């Protein structure tokens, strides 16, 4: 049970980390920098900024949004607030330029420098950029993985001792048999092999059962939680990759193998 639980915890955190990494990737592929112009910005100023953005190797697409278009967008997106806009005598929306960054533009230093350079250009009043989110998401993903490995590591150590104790009890129960085997000339390897298989089987079974539980949990989680809007994406767990699942099963086998080796060895020293 504890063996299964240990691997389940590692699995949950690995899955959470996978999810966060996936989100970070999604965000970074849709990274858009929006530069807002002040009211005094001339068409030439906007043209300069557009040229500067188009000239950057980080930018894949540039779109200038005029003040009128910005107001139309707002009205379309927030139809309930239409009346408030109608009562205003002026258009409060500034012109802006949306620069979509290339998928390959991941070096945050270069992006920050580009954003700063454009920010200092004449007519640019403000900038909106979601790289912070990407960075936070990536940090969170790393943190989830680290916490998973830390907790999982502690529990795996507990599993190691549990497996060794289970096998030790078995060794004690079969002490007579081991003694007879030794007296008729069995090698230590011959005596160890069945216990070794037992340990490996325990570890592998524990990890496989934990993977099945994890799969069930991932499948049933959305059913119980229902729709959570933005949170849904965060909590929409992804299953482990094949290599991660195989890694967990191998770790189970290795822990079982080590546990049985350490417990049987104590009985073969005499």
């Amino acid at each position, binding site marked *: 049970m504890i063996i299964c639980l240990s691997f389940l915890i590692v699995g949950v955190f690995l899955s959470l980390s996978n999810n966060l990494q996936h989100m970070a990737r999604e965000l970074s592929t849709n990274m858009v920098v929006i530069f807002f112009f002040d009211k005094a910005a001339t068409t030439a100023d906007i043209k300069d900024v557009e040229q500067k953005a188009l000239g950057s190797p980080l930018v894949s697409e540039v779109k200038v949004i005029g003040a009128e278009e910005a107001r139309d967008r707002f009205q379309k997106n927030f139809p309930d607030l239409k009346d408030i806009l109608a009562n205003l005598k002026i258009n409060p929306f500034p012109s802006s330029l949306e620069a979509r960054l290339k998928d390959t533009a991941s070096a945050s230093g270069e992006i920050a420098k580009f954003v700063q350079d454009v920010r200092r250009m004449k007519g640019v009043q403000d900038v909106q950029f979601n790289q912070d989110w990407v960075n936070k998401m990536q940090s969170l993903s790393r943190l989830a993985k680290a916490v998973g490995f830390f907790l999982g590591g502690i529990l795996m150590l507990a599993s190691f001792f549990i497996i060794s104790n289970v096998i030790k009890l078995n060794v004690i129960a079969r002490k*007579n*048999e081991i*003694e*007879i*085997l*030794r*007296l*008729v*000339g*069995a*090698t*230590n390897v*011959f005596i160890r092999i069945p216990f070794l298989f037992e340990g490996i089987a325990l570890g592998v079974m524990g990890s496989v059962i934990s993977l099945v539980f994890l799969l069930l949990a991932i499948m049933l989680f959305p059913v119980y939680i229902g729709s959570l809007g933005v949170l849904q994406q965060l909590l929409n767990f992804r299953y482990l990759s094949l290599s991660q699942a195989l890694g967990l099963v191998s770790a189970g086998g290795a822990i079982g193998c080590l546990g049985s080796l350490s417990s049987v060895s104590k009985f*073969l*020293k*005499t």
Partner: protein
Amino acid sequence: MSDISLQIRSGDFYFITGPSGSGKTTLLKIIFRELLPSRGQIIINGVNILKIPSHKIYGLRRMMGIVFQDFRLLFHRTVFDNVAIPLQVLGEPKKEIRRRVFNTLRMVNLHQKMWDLPSRLSYGEQQRVAIARAIVNSPKILLADEPTGNLDPELAFEIISLFKEINRQGATVIIGSHDRELIRHFGDRILFLQKGKLIGKDSL
């Protein structure tokens, strides 16, 4: 035990005798290295067995057959399984194991109870299973601690005759026993122990 110095030649047939507590079992245990003496040396085939590392002791034990006073049978395994252990340890093929186990059980007249559990056998039958296990791999040295202790005289004579036959085939046989009748009948060479000391050797 102390002050014991003796030489047993290959192919000898020895009885170790003496009253209860004289050290018969201890001496046998020292020979197959279940017990380690605090001093001295035991040389078998030119090798001081006390210097063999524990993980290599199997080499010594594979050339021995041992009949324990308490039999040391596995009660959850059949008679066949118990007798087959020394051959399984040697990695013999299954067919060969079946053949040799059957032949050995026939020698001790237990072949009809091959698939029984030892717990269903009488004390004397259990003893014969222990004997069959000791001789199944044709050992070079056969050690037996009170191998006829629970057998009726007729069967006891049969068993010792069997040991004699194994001895004639070249094995060295050392039997711990206090059965005077048996020793008188079969004892070529006898070691007398008392209170852990060798008090006499006798060759008939």
